[in-house]
């Protein structure tokens, strides 16, 4: 079987419990366990080969651009971990079957557990650094789900979040480290990486890589100063703790260090960082464990301490230290998993984990007590148990280093102190729980757990014993294989004897035992001493600091983005200024060499009008009607300027747009507050004025610089071909309906959409209807002055005639569909003004919406019509048709297109204006409700 089957099986296993949970708890458990069991079989199938030093690999290309392959390897180290993960995993599954109550969603639990198992197994089997990271992060995610399994509990949510945040942050650092390695080596393949130790250690950024990778490892393995998430992760159900926080997840960081050992270790920085971190963690964990009244809290800190021990060993970096580290990984996994399970049983059967309540359980659950005591003894390092062996090796290694120079002796001293604390808290675990008088206020009467709930504990405790007594025969090969992997294919000389003779390490053990006993006996004094320090709840601390950070950010953001439109506009304009000012400063002279037009009186007068009117608009902007009138002055001058400078089409368009805009603004004026308040402070005004003047200056400068410089343009083409290819003499119009007809198509679409949008805005708009003007003067009674009506009526046919005229001549002379459409609209609007909405609504039955649709579809059909002749969209066509009597008539597809423009313009402007007019006649409002 190929290696990928191992993670694949566990992955499939994620879904099994969800599917089988309805068949009952036992069946669900069995079905779930089947898949890791199969996976374990595959591992075992390869056991022999790997133990004989053969590495098994599988590789499949996945994302070449990233250098990420699906790549697995089974070597000694991964074999060891695979056995731990799958083996203990199976035990946890069995254990959880009894641990979880009937009410609990077992399917979800097992699903998460299997997901975690997949992540873990994928991680240890990875033969590609990126893939390794992939599974690494998956372990964080799935552990988040497991820790927060009881998500109705606040501590579970907080604990899970904290664990995720810390390990997630470490994961990101790890990713950075990994990518740096990848960039350095050009590959993430572990085979390449493991063979490039020298290259990495010699790299300029070795220290950066090291720190980043170690950040990943330390956060995951709860090393100082990141250890605090682990105790809070104890909010998880105990099977989770037994699995994640003893054997697997926290060991992922250790695994990473072990994996990268051949590549990163062996330097002074490695030694200093790793060993000091390990030592600190070892001490702090051991010390803290003693003071935890919570059974799981004690175990959590003890785990921290043991992880520190392994880290310290890896940090020492000698070959034998590495072997010791591997050995302790195995031992710790077995005794700690069993201890957690035992704690879970106690919790399950007594309803409490508080050692101040739990007393004298020996009487109630002797079998469990025996198991727990053996495991605790292993944790304390009592001879004949596995913990003793690896601790002896550890002591030996602390003595065998000299990297700290003259103060190297401190390490074994501190190691002994740590071990003493370890003995003390183990003693506390045994004595406080199983002896020490009678239980206090337990919610339940304790008794032995269900038979099979104890089985996993028995197996693990059995292992502790067997390994402790027959180390070479049981784990010898495995240890050798794993250590060979860690050391990069080399295995030092070592012996797994139970008895090495009375040597220094053994003396250290004795001191630790005695010291531990002394510490335990004086525990009350120690508790009192510890009580002087404020209780530090890291979870709360973490939460508060995140909250404080958030509050600070909120204040900052609220200051920066205070929700003000003016602020945003200011930034936009400021950036516009910055973007233009710098390039313009590189411009040597503003004026170019192009000959300029001489000035005459009219131009001067016009310019005066324009400037005065626009400045007056600024000054009088709070007098709304006046501002509006000033605006029309500006508009008029702009139109005249267009006319003057040879743009008749523009002049016409500007004029007609102008009128419609005025009407629209007048309507708005009526519904807006009559008085404008001065919303600006003087300093704001000065700031805005400066900005505006600068922007105006920049735009003016560009205008002048452009106009006075000659340039080459593509326009000659249009002038040359407007008639011959486009069939019209009005070049601008030919551009609009033909050369660049697509722009026009977009433009009328914009107009149509605007009308739809405005229609939406108007619907259900509730506005005040004023009964008097600004000065409190009531409106005149004469709604529709009769003379005004009569003349407006007379003007209508004339205006329509003009609009037909403007429409028809557009292709050859100034005019066209857009202007014609606006003239038509204005003519109709004039009727609305003169006659009122109601009068007209009864007489005009046009659906303006349909008009827009028709206009757009005509334009569209003109465009796609050319498809029939295999021509692209909007390919124009024109011809001269001779009709008797009438003469030659030009027919052009552009004309149809222009008709579309015309109809859209009429439809859109009328849809807007007529509906707006209808607002105050709301009784007759035919607009459907827009909520």
């Amino acid at each position, binding site marked *: 079987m190929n290696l990928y089957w191992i993670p694949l099986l566990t992955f499939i296993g994620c879904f099994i419990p969800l599917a089988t949970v309805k068949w009952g708890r036992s069946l669900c458990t069995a079905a779930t366990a089947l898949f890791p069991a199969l996976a374990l079989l595959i591992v075992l199938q390869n056991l022999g080969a790997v133990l004989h030093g053969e590495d098994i690999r599988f590789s499949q290309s996945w994302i070449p651009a990233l250098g990420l392959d699906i790549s697995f390897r089974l070597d000694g180290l991964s074999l060891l971990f695979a056995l731990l993960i799958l083996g203990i995993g199976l035990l946890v599954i069995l254990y959880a079957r009894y641990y979880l109550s009937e009410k609990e969603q077992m399917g979800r639990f097992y699903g998460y557990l299997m997901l975690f198992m997949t992540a873990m197994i994928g991680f240890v089997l990875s033969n590609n650094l990126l893939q390794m990271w992939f599974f690494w*992060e998956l372990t964080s995610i799935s552990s988040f789900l497991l820790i927060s399994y009881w998500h*109705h509990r606040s501590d579970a949510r907080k604990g*899970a979040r904290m664990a995720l945040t810390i390990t997630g942050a470490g994961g990101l650092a790890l990713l950075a480290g990994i990518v740096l390695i990848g960039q350095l080596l050009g590959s993430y393949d572990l085979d390449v990486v493991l063979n490039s130790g020298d290259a990495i250690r010699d790299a300029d950024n070795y220290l950066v890589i090291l720190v980043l990778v170690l950040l990943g490892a330390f956060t995951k393995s709860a090393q100082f100063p990141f250890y605090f998430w682990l105790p809070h992760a104890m909010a998880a159900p105990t099977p989770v703790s037994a699995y994640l926080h003893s054997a697997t997840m926290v060991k992922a960081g250790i695994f990473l260090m072990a994996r990268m050992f051949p590549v990163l270790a062996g330097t002074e920085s490695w030694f200093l960082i790793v060993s000091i971190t390990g030592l600190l963690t070892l001490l702090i964990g051991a010390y803290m464990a003693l003071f935890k009244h919570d059974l799981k809290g004690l175990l959590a800190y003890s785990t921290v301490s043991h992880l520190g021990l392994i880290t310290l060993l890896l940090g020492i970096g000698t070959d034998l230290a590495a072997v010791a580290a591997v050995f302790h990984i195995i031992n710790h996994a077995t005794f700690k998993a069993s201890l957690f399970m035992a704690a879970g049983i106690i919790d399950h059967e007594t309803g409490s984990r508080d050692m101040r309540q739990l007393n004298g359980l020996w009487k109630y659950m002797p079998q469990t007590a025996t198991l727990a005591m053996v495991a605790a003894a292993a944790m304390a390092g009592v001879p004949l148990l596995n913990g003793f062996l690896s601790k002896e090796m550890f002591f030996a290694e602390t003595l065998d280093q000299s990297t700290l120079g003259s103060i190297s002796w401190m390490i074994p001293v501190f190691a002994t102190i740590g071990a003493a604390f370890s003995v003390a808290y183990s003693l506390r675990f045994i004595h406080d729980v199983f002896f020490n008088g009678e239980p206090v206020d337990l919610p339940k009467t304790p008794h032995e757990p269900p038979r099979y709930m104890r089985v996993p504990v028995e197996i693990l405790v059995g292992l502790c014993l067997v390994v402790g007594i027959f180390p070479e025969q049981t784990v010898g090969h495995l240890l050798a294989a794993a250590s060979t992997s860690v050391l990069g294919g080399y295995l030092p000389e070592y012996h797994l004897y139970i008895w090495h003779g009375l040597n220094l390490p053994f003396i250290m053990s004795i001191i630790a035992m005695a010291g531990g006993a002394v510490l335990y006996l004086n525990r009350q004094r120690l508790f009192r001493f510890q009580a002087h320090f404020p209780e530090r709840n890291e979870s709360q601390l973490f939460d508060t600091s995140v909250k404080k950070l958030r509050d600070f950010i909120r204040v900052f953001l609220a200051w920066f983005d205070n929700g003000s439109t003016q602020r945003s506009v200011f930034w936009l304009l400021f950036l516009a200024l910055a973007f233009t000012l710098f390039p313009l400063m590189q411009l040597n002279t503003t004026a170019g060499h192009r000959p300029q037009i001489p000035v005459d009186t009219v131009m001067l007068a016009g310019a005066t009008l324009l400037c005065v009117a626009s400045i007056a608009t600024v000054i009088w902007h709070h007098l709304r009607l006046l501002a509006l009138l000033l605006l029309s002055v500006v508009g008029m001058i702009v139109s005249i300027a267009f006319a003057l400078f040879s743009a008749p089409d523009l002049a016409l368009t500007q004029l007609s747009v102008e009128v419609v805009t005025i009407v629209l603004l007048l309507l708005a004026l009526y519904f807006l507050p009559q008085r404008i308040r001065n919303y600006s402070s003087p300093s704001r005004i000065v700031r805005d004025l400066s900005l505006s003047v600068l922007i105006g200056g920049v735009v003016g400068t*560009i205008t002048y610089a452009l106009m006075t410089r000659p340039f080459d343009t593509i326009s000659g083409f249009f002038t040359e071909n407007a008639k011959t290819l486009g069939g019209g003499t009005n070049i601008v119009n030919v551009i609009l309906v033909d050369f660049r007809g697509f722009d026009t198509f977009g433009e009328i679409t914009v107009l149509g959409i605007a009308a739809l949008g405005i229609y939406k805005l108007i619907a259900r708009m509730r506005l005040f209807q004023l009964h008097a003007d600004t000065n409190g003067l009531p409106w005149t009674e004469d709604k529709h002055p009769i003379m005004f009506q009569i003349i407006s009526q007379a003007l209508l046919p004339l205006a329509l005639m003009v609009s037909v005229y403007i429409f028809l001549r557009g292709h050859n002379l100034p005019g066209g569909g857009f202007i014609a459409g606006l003239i038509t609209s204005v003519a109709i609007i004039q009727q609305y003004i003169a006659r009122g909405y109601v009068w007209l609504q009864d007489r005009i039955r046009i659906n303006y919406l349909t008009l827009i649709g028709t206009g757009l579809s005509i334009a569209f059909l003109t465009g796609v019509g050319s498809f029939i002749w295999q021509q692209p969209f909007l390919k124009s066509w024109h011809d001269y048709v001779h009709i008797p009597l009438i003469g030659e008539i030009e027919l052009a597809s552009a004309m149809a297109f222009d008709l579309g423009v015309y109809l859209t313009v009429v439809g859109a402007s009328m849809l807007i204006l007529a509906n707006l007019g209808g607002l105050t006649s709301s009784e007759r409002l035919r607009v459907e409700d827009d909520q």
Partner: protein
Amino acid sequence: MNHLTIAPILIPSITAILMLLPPLAERIVLQRWLAWVSFVLLLAASTALLLQVDQQTQVYLLGGWQPPFGIMLLADRLSVMLVTLTAFLALCACLYGSAHEETTGRFFYPLFMFQVMGINGAFLTGDIFNLFVFFEVLLIASYALLVHGGGKEKTKASFHYITLNLLGSAFFLIALGTLYGTVGTLNMADLSAKVPLLAAETQAIAKAGALLLLLVFGLKSAMMPLQFWLTRTYAAAAAPVAALFAIMTKVGLYSIYRVFGGIFGDSAGDLANIATPWIWPLAIATLVFGMLGAIAAPSLRLLTANMVLISVGTLLLSFVMNGGQSLAAGLYYLMHSTLVAAALFLLADQIHVQRGHAQDRFVVSRPMKQAGILGAFYFTAAIAIIGLPPLSGFVGKALLLQGVTDSSERIWVWSSLLISSLFALIAFSRAGTSLFWHLSGSKSGTEVAKLAQLVAIALLLLASPLLTLFAGPVTSFTERAAQDIRQSTVLVQQVIAESEELTYDTH
């Protein structure tokens, strides 16, 4: 002529037009079906075009006028990739909207269609003024869609959004005037050919114009300090609209790619890469601002909006970093972030509806009726958008990290990318735990998502695992697409040169 090229513009256009006319105008059911059919058709057409342009870039001459005189569509891998993305996104958003939003105001479907038309037009056009026109199409449609459903918040957000964009459009025109007045052409490839030939004394003017384009595109893409509209708008818009808006920032980004990669890219002589020194700090500022906003966000919608900001910053970075070599990674990230953000907007809406008074704010609330499925959706989306394995975000992020090789760039890019991921992780874990797990009372509301809504979210989310699974072929495609910025320009320049020969022959 290959009409498939223009189909992504014409399909939504005619659909929208038909919806204004009887018999569809008044019949929402018909409109709904037409919209679905049309989007499926659009997706099919875009996909077909995508396959085509992967073989051969397509140039479509509107009205048959040769470039640079007429308007031209340019369908290359880059543009069609985005068009296809739009089609898929729009289909999902429309599907979602058909459950509720179609009835909360008029013209939902036609406006939706017009919006898509505008977006597709902006992606496909090869003419800078035509780009302006399509920008306006998509903007006006977005204004109208933004107010869809009514309410104070929408009105408030709209005025802000519109004021900024109208100013943006004004500067767009100034920029175009400046470019035309100096270079004398509007075709983007032709601009690219002529910009290096500019006389020294006009270069400065053209540069000012070009940077104004950066302002405009920056505004659309929500680049700092032009991002103010984004959170407000996204928080106020109706869910399917917000989802569709997720592609809008990408239009701005795409335009930046085209203009500052194509016209003012490496081959622009003295004006080469003029935007780069500006984009660098602004992109990082955007990212930082986005991640701060994510931490501070009080609701899922705002959180998502800030994630969009982060993605904008990231994408801008991908454009400038590593001398422009990381764009392929950026394009992958673009697809991923757009779809996931859209899904999150839709999801936030469902959460909002089902949590009653608490809406999508991170406060204690009653349980949701469909907490299970929504939770699963949320979990998926969060993992994807934070950039964690096993979903697409991590691929994009890793590609981007890997893309930076210059050590001075690396400091900035890596720290901003990684820290933003961490902030996103913190924000989303907090958001998720408080939305789904911080409950009071056991009685859930009665509101349930309609099937169409769930399917829409699921479809969008499905993209993420697919993008991961097929990351190999996808990244190889985006690598080719990233090269198109340069290659398509050269291609069009050849077309122009050929047509000029033709023109001279006839005269």
